[in-house]
């Protein structure tokens, strides 16, 4: 009984013990906050990776692909029909994306993925990532993922009208002044580099952004028009010979979803300081894609395609490298359609499982089915192995480092306890004179340590959880106070800091802190228990 009483009294009267409690509390709170934020980030990231990839991917090792998607799908279905929820065939190939913005051509390296939007949606949440589309539009009673929405159509329409107007002006101007149209023909040569698969009208450059298009590149011939028309300084506008021959308001055969990072850049509003995204390409614009054919040897292939929408998965790696294309068009461009059998080749099959926990078994089954030389079968985790492993290692190292903080708190407790034991030497002598056993005296100090640990980690858990709960408010306050954003949306794609509290982590941290507090008090407690009563009593 005296143990508890003394313990509580020491806790109440030794203010130095508050230092122990605070250090334990800070350690625990920090660990909880950091772990929650790390888990939040990790989860968010996994969600996003998984959203773009699929549970399991069967890939051919060659970019040429393998023929007959249906046959492969049938093989897969035969092997693991019970586990598979959905499958879709895709073609993955490297390429380049070129588009015009502010009078210059911008080229980006991309990974081009030919998909069927409906099939892809069954495998992963594709439509959720599209920025301007909430659901695939229905055309003629059928869902068509590649149809332009009304905003994109309007954009295209307006652009077409503008181009026609430009054409007229240009012709009128040329005939009026009798100047040979060398500028036009020059650009025509540059621009209409024919692609074997693309109709000639496709070389219509995108009209990237009306507001920023007043580039100073206008040459002398268009200068006069520019005074009347803000769009007139685009030297390519209206120069395509195809405009007159085809209805430009109709989208091209090639359709794309672009990663948002490819065609946008963030900028800070000078007045409000808000971070905004400037789109260089709008849905409805045409862009140029360069890739390779599936021939032997591969030859370059180019085509123009209409941007249907941009997607934002939140994984910057994907958003700045992936371009989804309509599968059939890509197959056609790459020569993956056998001219005689009409059999279409594919490079990978994405599979969604009913139960992801069975992924390893499915992968094993499929690996047995497809020879490793020509195919690779991987879960999305294996595909993103290095990234996920890096995050895990990061998290583990961080935890070790943070636990050192609590260990430091432990040494603080050790030192402070030694002090308290020295201070209490006489009291220990009294207790022993009154019949307290060495073990009893030891347990006074051990339970004192435990009490410090419990109080410290209890308060730490509460503080940590509150911090996690209000982390975004706190972030805002800190941003306001320091004038520097702590959490920059330009770096992370999240509008706010993602957190996830794992109850086990919290328990583990709290118990770890308590254990450290008790461990730290063992040495002083042993010293206390070994004090000789007579010497302790004599101590002044």
């Amino acid at each position, binding site marked *: *009984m005296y143990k508890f*009483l003394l313990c509580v009294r020491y806790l109440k009267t030794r203010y130095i013990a508050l230092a122990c409690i605070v250090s334990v509390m800070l350690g625990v709170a920090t660990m909880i906050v950091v772990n929650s934020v790390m888990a939040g980030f990790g989860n968010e990231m996994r969600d996003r990776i998984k959203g773009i990839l699929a549970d399991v991917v069967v890939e051919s090792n060659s970019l040429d692909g393998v023929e007959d998607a249906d046959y492969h799908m049938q093989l897969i279905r035969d092997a693991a029909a019970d586990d598979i929820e959905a499958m879709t065939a895709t073609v993955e190939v490297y390429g380049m994306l070129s588009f015009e913005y502010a009078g210059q051509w911008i080229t980006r390296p991309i990974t081009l993925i030919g998909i069927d939007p409906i099939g892809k949606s069954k495998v992963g949440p594709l439509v959720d990532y599209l920025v301007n589309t909430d659901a695939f539009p229905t055309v003629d009673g059928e869902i068509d993922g590649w149809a332009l929405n009304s905003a994109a159509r309007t954009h295209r329409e307006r652009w077409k009208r503008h181009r026609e107007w430009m054409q007229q002006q240009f012709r009128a101007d040329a005939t009026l002044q009798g100047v040979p149209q060398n500028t036009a023909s020059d650009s025509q040569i540059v621009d209409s580099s024919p692609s074997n698969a693309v109709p000639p009208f496709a070389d219509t450059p995108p009209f990237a952004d009306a507001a920023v298009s007043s580039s100073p590149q206008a040459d002398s011939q268009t200068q006069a028009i520019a005074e009347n028309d803000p769009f007139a300084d685009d030297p390519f506008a209206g120069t395509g010979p195809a405009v007159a021959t085809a209805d430009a308001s109709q989208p091209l055969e090639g359709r794309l979803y672009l990663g948002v990072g490819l065609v946008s850049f963030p900028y800070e509003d000078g007045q409000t300081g808000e971070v905004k995204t400037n789109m260089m390409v709008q849905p409805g614009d045409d862009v140029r894609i360069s890739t390779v054919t599936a021939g032997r040897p591969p030859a370059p292939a180019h085509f123009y395609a209409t941007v249907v929408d941009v997607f934002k998965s939140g994984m910057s790696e994907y958003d700045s490298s992936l371009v989804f294309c309509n599968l059939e068009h890509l197959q056609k461009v790459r020569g993956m359609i056998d001219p005689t059998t009409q059999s279409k080749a594919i490079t990978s099959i994405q599979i969604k499982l009913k139960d992801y926990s069975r992924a390893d078994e499915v992968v094993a089954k499929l690996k047995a089915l497809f020879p490793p030389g020509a195919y690779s079968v991987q879960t999305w985790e294996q595909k993103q192995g290095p990234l996920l492993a890096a995050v895990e290692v990061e998290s583990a190292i961080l935890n070790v480092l943070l636990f050192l903080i609590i260990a430091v708190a432990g040494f603080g407790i050790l030192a402070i306890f030694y002090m308290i034991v020295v201070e209490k030497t006489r*009291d220990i002598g*009294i*207790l022993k004179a*009154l*019949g307290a056993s060495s073990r009893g005296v030891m347990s006074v100090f051990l339970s004192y340590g435990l009490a410090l640990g419990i109080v410290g980690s209890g308060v730490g858990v509460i503080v940590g959880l509150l911090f996690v709960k209000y982390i975004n408010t706190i972030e805002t306050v800190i941003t306001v106070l320091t004038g520097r954003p702590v959490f920059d949306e330009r770096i992370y794609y999240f509008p706010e800091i993602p957190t996830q509290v794992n109850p086990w982590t919290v328990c583990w941290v709290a118990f770890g802190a308590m254990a450290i507090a008790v461990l730290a008090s063992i040495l002083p407690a042993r010293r206390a228990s070994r004090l000789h009563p*007579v010497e302790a009593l004599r101590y002044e």
Partner: protein
Amino acid sequence: MNETVRMPVNHIQAIALEKSYHKGEHRVPVLCGTEISINKGEFVSIVGQSGSGKSTLLHLIGLLDSPDVGEVRLEGQRIDDLPTRVRDELRNRVFGFIFQFYHLLPELNLLENVLSPLMIRHPAWRYWTRRNEFRDMALHFIEKVGLMHRLHHKPSELSGGEMQRAAIARALVAAPEVLLADEPTGNLDAGTGEEIMELLTSLNEQEALTIIMVTHDPVIAQQAHRTVRLVEGRIELQQERSGATGHEISCA
């Protein structure tokens, strides 16, 4: 108890005690074959100069320390070589200590200090179930030493005399058989010391408590039944209260 009051039973016996302390490399002998026997209900005072070993003798009798050579016997049974746990138990149940510097626990109030031997004796849950009974016991002894008005005061808020009376109440609440007092008046003025002595004398007379008191004040020592003088670790003189019929015991 009453029937044994004046029976010449050897309650406490110290036989050929030797004890030395180490100061650095030197071995400093403190007790050198000290022999003493104390009867039940006797009030013995041990006098001697500083360093004569009187406190050490008291500590050895009270099992706070163990002798190098010799035996301590309680009612004929050797107790100094018992296992630590039993010795702890004996300290709690048989011996009551009173110290020169009172030695109350500064974090606890008077009532809690008085209760502390009972808290040590009983496991927490048993103490909790009997806490009212214990409280009444403690109040009884606090009343006896006249400190009912100071129940919830911390030791720092008490005067020296009050603290010593609280220490006596603490010693008594454990219902000891032997009260070991180490200069109980050494830190008090004459008047207060006299009060304490009166308290001890009355306890000895009324409760037939065996009291062994160490003091260097001959006037205080006079109030005991018997005075034992220690010189350099040996009993030099034993003196009954009535006269000076002491005899010497030499070191073996």
